[in-house]
């Protein structure tokens, strides 16, 4: 049983970790200073959430730490979703990715706050406050870009079209989902699909963005340890220093 909770914590923790790393890559590159601070603040929140889940994962596994899990794990042992691995193509991509994940996080964490696992419900009660803010922020930007100029609408539509293929993974159940559901620790991923779709489509429609058709695109998923070509590069950069100087400290 602990194996599956471990796997579940990795999925949530790794997804927040990798997304926060992607946001970190963007630091100092946002179009305006205020946005730069705002988005890196979101990244910091996500890093905090990742740390909480990875700390718990490390305790469940025993003999390891969150740092070790982060910096010494191999790519195939990561459980992050494909969506968070996608590159920072432009501001519209970064925002769309954030919006899709914020909607997912809100639907997921609204369930996790009632988890039978006290540790997970505790972390989630703290995280949901941050997540509600993240979603408000990204929703406003979707409306601002969608209803802005023809050009901003087009760039946003393009990002939505390109990123949509990564959203089917969010709602695929694997063995871990089934076990978590059985133990009332977490919801079936498939049960999050309807509330997520309602949340996403109502905002996109208000922003004059066409919602792409839902399709099954991928046969391999990050939550099962099969990743996009991007993750290897992310880890190479993220793990470079601790691998080169294993005992380095400051």
């Amino acid at each position: 049983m602990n194996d599956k909770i471990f796997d579940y914590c990795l999925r949530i923790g790794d997804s927040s970790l990798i997304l926060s790393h992607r946001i970190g890559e963007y630091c100092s590159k946002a179009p305006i200073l205020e946005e730069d601070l705002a988005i890196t603040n979101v990244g910091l929140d996500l890093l905090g959430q990742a740390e909480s889940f990875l700390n718990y994962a490390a305790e469940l596994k025993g003999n390891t730490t969150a740092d070790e899990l982060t910096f010494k794990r191999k790519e195939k042992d990561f459980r992050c979703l494909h969506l968070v691995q996608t590159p920072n193509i432009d501001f519209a991509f970064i925002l769309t990715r954030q919006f899709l994940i914020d909607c997912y996080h809100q639907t997921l964490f609204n369930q996790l706050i009632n988890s039978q696992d006290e540790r997970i419900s505790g972390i989630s009660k703290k995280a949901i406050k941050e997540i509600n803010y993240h979603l408000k922020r990204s929703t406003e930007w979707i409306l601002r870009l969608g209803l802005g100029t023809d050009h901003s609408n087009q760039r946003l539509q393009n990002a939505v079209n390109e990123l949509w293929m990564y959203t089917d993974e969010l709602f695929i159940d694997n063995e871990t989902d089934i076990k978590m559901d059985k133990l009332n620790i977490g919801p079936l991923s498939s049960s999050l699909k309807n509330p997520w779709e309602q949340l996403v489509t109502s905002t996109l429609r208000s922003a004059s963005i066409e919602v792409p058709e839902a399709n099954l695109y991928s046969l391999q998923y990050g939550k099962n340890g099969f990743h996009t070509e991007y993750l290897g590069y992310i880890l190479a950069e993220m793990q470079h220093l601790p691998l080169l100087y294993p005992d380095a400290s400051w």
Partner: protein
Amino acid sequence: MSDEDQGILWEVFIQVKAGRPFKHVGSLHAYDKEMAMKAARDLYTRRNEGNGIWIVKAENIISSDINDGESFFDPSNDKIYRHPTFYKIPDGVKHI
């Protein structure tokens, strides 16, 4: 919109806790009210600085002219009778 366009300039005021005055803490750029409020929260209240925010468009603030200082403020300096320093304040009175 040019690359240099960072939006409207806004002035931000923070209230430390309910009942206390809002104090000016700085300014920011944003394109609309909602964005200004979020930016103010992210820039100025992330370390428990307060739990109330006021935001005003900088252009809506009427300010005194710095060059008028002499005629505006100096005349009060030598009129000590305008400062109520001659009164004895009862012990029970606070916040003066």
